[in-house]
C-alpha cells in the first residue's frame, strides 16, 4: 500500500516509526525528569546536525569534516545581529543561512572539485580559517571573549526561562531535517546525489551535472547546519570561537552518521540517539578531567564499529534482516 499525498512514494511501513517517534518525543518532557531534557535537546541537536551532514556527506558523498564552519557562521550571524544590532533571532537565523549560502557558493565551487580525503582536509582547513578569523576580527565578533546574550525573556528575542520551548524547537528542527532527508532520498534529486556519489564521471556522462548537484547538496546541508547553529546560540546564550568553530563538533556529526549508516535516512538519527546521550551522561557523571573517559569509549566505539560494520548500523540491519 502506498500513499500519494506526499511528493514521493512511501510505503505505510515508514509511517509507524515516524509517528511513534513524533508521539514519544512530543510527550516525553512531561513524563521524564527535567534534568534529562537538556540531554534530549543535545541529542536532537546532534541528530539534526548529523542528518544535515548526511545530505551532503552520505547521499552526495561529499565527506566533509568541516561542518562546524556552517554551524559557527550561523551562530555568529544571529548572535551578532541580536546583541549588536537588536535584530530578533527569528530573522537572524535566516541571515545566518544566507551567509552560509554565500560561503558555499564562493568556496564550494572550487572545493567541490576535490575528492575523498582531499576534500575532508580542505574542509578542516576552512574551519581553521574561520576559527582564527573569528578571533582576529574582534570588532565584529568580539574575538575570543565571546558574546553572551543578555537575559531578557521574551518570545521575540527567543530567550526563555525554561528549557521547554527549546526542547520543541530542536525537536522540530530534527524532524524537519528528517523529513527533508526523506524527500531527498526518495526523489529524483536524491537519486542524482547518489549517482554522483557512486561514480561521478558516469553520472556526468548520463547527463547529471555533478557540479550543480554537489553544490545543491552542500547548500541544503549547510543551511540546516546553520539553523541548528543559530538555535544553539540562543539556547546556550553564549558563544565564542572555541565553542562554535570547534572542529570536533563537525567531526562528531560525521562520525555519528557513519556509525548509524551514512547514505540512509535513519542512520544519522540512530547513530545520534545511541551515542550522544551516552556521551552527555558520562561526561556529567564523572567529574574533573576523568570525564574524558567518555571520549575514550566513544573513540573505541567508532574504531570498533568502523572495522566491523563499516556500512553503519542501519546498513548492517538492512543487510541481515531485510532479505
Amino acid at each position, binding site marked *: 500500500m502506498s500513499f500519494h499525498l506526499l511528493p514521493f512514494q512511501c510505503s505505510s511501513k515508514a509511517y509507524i516509526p515516524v509517528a511513534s517517534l513524533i508521539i514519544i518525543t512530543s510527550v516525553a518532557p512531561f513524563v521524564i525528569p527535567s534534568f534529562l531534557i537538556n540531554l534530549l535537546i543535545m541529542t536532537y541537536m546532534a541528530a539534526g546536525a548529523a542528518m544535515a551532514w548526511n545530505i551532503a556527506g552520505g547521499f552526495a558523498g561529499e565527506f566533509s569534516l568541516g561542518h562546524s564552519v556552517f554551524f559557527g557562521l550561523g551562530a555568529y550571524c544571529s548572535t551578532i545581529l541580536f546583541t549588536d544590532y537588536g535584530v530578533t533571532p527569528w530573522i537572524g537565523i535566516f541571515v545566518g543561512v544566507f551567509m552560509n549560502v554565500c560561503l558555499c557558493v564562493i568556496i564550494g565551487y572550487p572545493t567541490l572539485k576535490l575528492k575523498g580525503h582531499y576534500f575532508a582536509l580542505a574542509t*578542516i*582547513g*576552512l574551519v581553521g580559517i574561520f576559527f582564527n578569523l573569528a578571533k582576529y576580527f574582534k570588532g565584529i565578533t568580539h574575538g575570543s571573549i565571546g558574546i553572551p546574550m543578555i537575559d531578557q525573556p521574551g518570545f521575540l528575542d527567543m530567550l526563555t526561562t525554561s528549557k521547554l520551548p527549546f526542547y520543541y524547537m530542536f525537536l522540530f528542527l530534527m524532524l524537519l531535517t528528517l523529513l527533508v532527508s526523506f524527500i531527498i532520498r526518495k526523489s529524483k534529486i536524491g537519486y542524482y546525489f547518489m549517482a554522483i556519489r557512486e561514480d561521478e564521471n558516469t553520472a556526468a556522462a548520463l547527463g547529471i551535472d555533478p557540479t550543480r548537484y554537489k553544490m545543491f547538496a552542500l547548500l541544503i546541508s549547510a543551511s540546516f547546519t546553520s539553523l541548528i547553529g543559530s538555535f544553539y546560540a540562543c539556547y546556550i546564550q553564549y558563544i565564542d570561537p572555541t565553542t562554535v568553530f570547534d*572542529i570536533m563538533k563537525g567531526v562528531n556529526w560525521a562520525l555519528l552518521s557513519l556509525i548509524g549508516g551514512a547514505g540512509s535516512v535513519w542512520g544519522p538519527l540512530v547513530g545520534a540517539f545511541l551515542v550522544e546521550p551516552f556521551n552527555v551522561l558520562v561526561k556529567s557523571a564523572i567529574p574533573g578531567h576523568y570525564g*574524558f573517559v567518555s*571520549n575514550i569509549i566513544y*573513540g573505541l566505539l567508532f574504531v570498533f564499529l568502523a572495522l566491523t560494520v563499516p556500512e553503519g548500523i542501519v546498513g548492517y540491519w538492512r543487510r541481515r534482516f531485510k532479505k
Partner: protein
Amino acid sequence: MDIFLQTIVNGILYGSVIALFSIGLTLIFGVMDVVNFAHGEYIMLSIYGAYGLHRFLGIDPYTGIPIVAIAAYFFGIVSERSFIRPIINQAVSVKIIVTLGISIIFQNLALVFFSPNTRAIQTWYTVKSLHVGGIEISLGRLIAMAITIFIMIILHAFLNRTKYGLAIRATAQDKTTAQLMGMPSYHIYTITFGISILLTSIAGCCLAALYPFSPTVGTQYVLIAFVVVVLGGLGNINGALVAGLFIGSVHNIVGTYLDLTLAPPIYYGLFITVLILRAVGYLEKLQYKLKSFRGGK
C-alpha cells in the same frame, strides 16, 4: 632589516621541526595512501615520553631521543598491525573514521592520565642563545635544526642506498609490481609506519624541549603537518622539508608583521588553494610549462 632577518631565522628554525614531524606523515601517505589523522597524537605521545624521561629519569629531551625513538618505532609497528593494516584496502571514509577514532582515543587517554594542564621543560639550552651579527639564535632551536638536517641525511641515505629503502620506494611507486618483484607489501607497510613514527618521535622530543605542551597539542600540530604535506607534495619527502621551512617562515613573518592569529588563515588558505590547483591539474600544467621553457633554451 634586522627584525626581518631575525624573523626569517626564527621561521627557519621553527620550520625545521615542523618539517621533521611532517616527513613521517608524508612517508605514510606516499607509501600506504593513508591519511593518518592520528599523527598528531603520536607527536603528543612522544612529547610526553620525552617529558617522562626528563621528569623521572633526569634525561634531557635531546639526549633521550634514541630511547624515545626506539620505543616509538615499536609502538608504530604495533599500531600498524592493530589498526592500520585492516583499513588499508577499505574505503576512504573508513580510513578517516578509524584514524580519527584512534586520535580521539589517544588524546583522551592522555587527558585522563596526564591531565589537561600545560607543561614545559626547562633545560640549560632553552635559555641560551648565540648572537650572530645582531641576530639572536636560540641554542635549543639550533640543536633541533641540526637534528633535523642530520635525520634528513640519514633518511636520504636509507631510502636511496639500502635494500629496505629501495623496497619502500618501490612499493610507494607501484605496489603490485613491487610485489611481483618479491617485495612483501604488508611487511613494508609495517616497517614504513614504524619509521614514520620514529621520525615523528624525534620531532616530538625537539618540541618537548622547546615549547610548552598539553594533551591537546597534537591537534594543532597535525593541522600544520597536513598543510606542509600538501604543499610539499604528498609522498614527497624533500618537498615536506622545503614546505616545512616555508610554513615556519610564513608563520613567523605573519606573526611579526601582522598578527599571529592571522597566520593559520593564511597558510590554510594556501593549503586549500594548492589542494584545488592540484585537483584541477594546474600544478602539472605549470610544471610542464617550466620544463618546456627550460628545454626550449
